[in-house]
């Protein structure tokens, strides 16, 4: 599937730094329509920074961010969200002190009422309907992740970005969630998945980018990422 759709997310020559610490060096990433891209790499490789820049939570020191062909470098995160970029950050992406219903309501906007969001969310994850009045913080890890996915998807995004969704979750729950992600991609949504646990996500990804030290080390077909490349990126084996 890779390389067929038009580019949805393009990061061009991105460099970024926290205060004086530079964390990304000239990173180029393109996610096309309907494609699932796995963004892999060890800790400190700069994966989460890529996501922050793509979702406009952080500004690059150099380079530009394009969404569906429009240059949106420097736009506000809320603006991108309204344009159909859905980001689920590391750590579940829910508001723990809001109920399930209120969490869903956060996605409401002009032309998208709460009831529509609930309808769509509960159709995808029926378990959430049972828990609609519960505080999101009291849900299980898997349900919390479902909630954030459900909320994001109810907005009909063009681009879905997921950061370390599997962290702290049982493998079976992770498998379930990634099945949903695959289904979403089949509906034509582009997906960028950040995972430390490479094997988990390579099974569903079309393309992959491997990063380390803020550089892109590999970019191409997901099938071409082999254990040796990964081991050397992660553990420094030769």
């Amino acid at each position, binding site marked *: 599937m890779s390389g067929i759709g038009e580019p949805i997310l393009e990061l061009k020559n991105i460099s970024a730094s926290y205060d004086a610490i530079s964390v990304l060096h000239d990173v180029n990433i393109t996610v096309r329509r309907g494609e699932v891209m796995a963004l892999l790499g060890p800790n400190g*490789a700069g994966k989460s920074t890529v996501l922050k820049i793509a979702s406009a939570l952080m500004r690059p020191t150099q380079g530009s961010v394009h969404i569906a062909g429009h240059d949106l470098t420097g736009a506000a995160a809320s603006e991108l969200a309204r344009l159909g970029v859905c980001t689920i950050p590391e750590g579940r992406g829910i508001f723990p002190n809001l109920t399930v219903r209120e969490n869903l309501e956060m996605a409401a906007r002009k032309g998208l009422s709460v009831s529509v969001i609930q309808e769509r969310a509960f159709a995808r994850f029926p378990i959430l309907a049972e828990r609609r009045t519960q505080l999101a913080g009291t849900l299980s890890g898997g349900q919390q992740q479902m909630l954030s996915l459900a909320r994001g998807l109810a907005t009909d995004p063009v681009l879905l970005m997921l950061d370390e969704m599997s962290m702290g979750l049982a493998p079976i729950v992770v498998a379930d969630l990634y099945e949903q992600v695959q289904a979403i991609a089949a509906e034509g949504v582009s997906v960028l998945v950040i995972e430390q646990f490479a094997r988990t996500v390579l099974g569903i990804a079309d393309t992959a980018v491997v990063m380390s030290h803020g550089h892109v080390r590999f970019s191409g077909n997901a099938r071409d990422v082999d254990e040796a490349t990964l081991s050397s990126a992660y553990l*420094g084996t030769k």
Partner: protein
Amino acid sequence: MTALLEVRSVAVRFGGVMALSGVDLDVQKDSITGLIGPNGAGKTTLFNVICGIRQPTTGVVLLDNEEINGVPTQKRSAMGIGRTFQRLELFTTLSVFDNVLVAAELARVSNPHAVAREQIELLGLTDRADTIAGELPTGSARLLEVARALAGRPRLLLLDEPASGLDDVETQQLGVLLQQLKSLGITVLLVEHDMSLIMKVCDQIHVLDLGNVIASGTPDQIQHDPSVIDAYLGAVR
């Protein structure tokens, strides 16, 4: 060889989450010991326990066979523990020289100015001695953290990701420096994501995952340990 630092069944609980669940590990005298593991494995928490910023829920920490659990943070430097921070904690409005000088003065060394000069020279920061620390580029700032920790004359030096933000040349120089420290009789415990650095300089490596030590051994053993590879790459789907 004898152990300078012994961590015995140390557990730390944050609310309902176990950040460390019964960690046991030794750091041998005059060695460079690596501490690696995926994000959230508990490495920084362990550092905080060792230098007294956080008390363990259970378990003990021994320095040179002496239990140091109740010793407050500020007294541990006098016992010979020094550290650097993953997120830089420099005295940003003091000059490079004064950063190190404060450390030497706090350690009550007999000639703090000389000690400060010596450490700055060792880390190659002499040219920047008068620069305000907040204006240093990352590489130099990391090195300054090391110099400052060294000015306290530690026996055990805890380094938290000293190579992050360093370029390849600087990382190489850091590796050389670590070897040098070892030959000066300073024991180093090193948390680092740069595996090539870890594998090159460490005598011994402990791997932490989800609050547990899942493997210990030489760099070669660790690189070929299947449980370590699984911890990093995730289970096969």
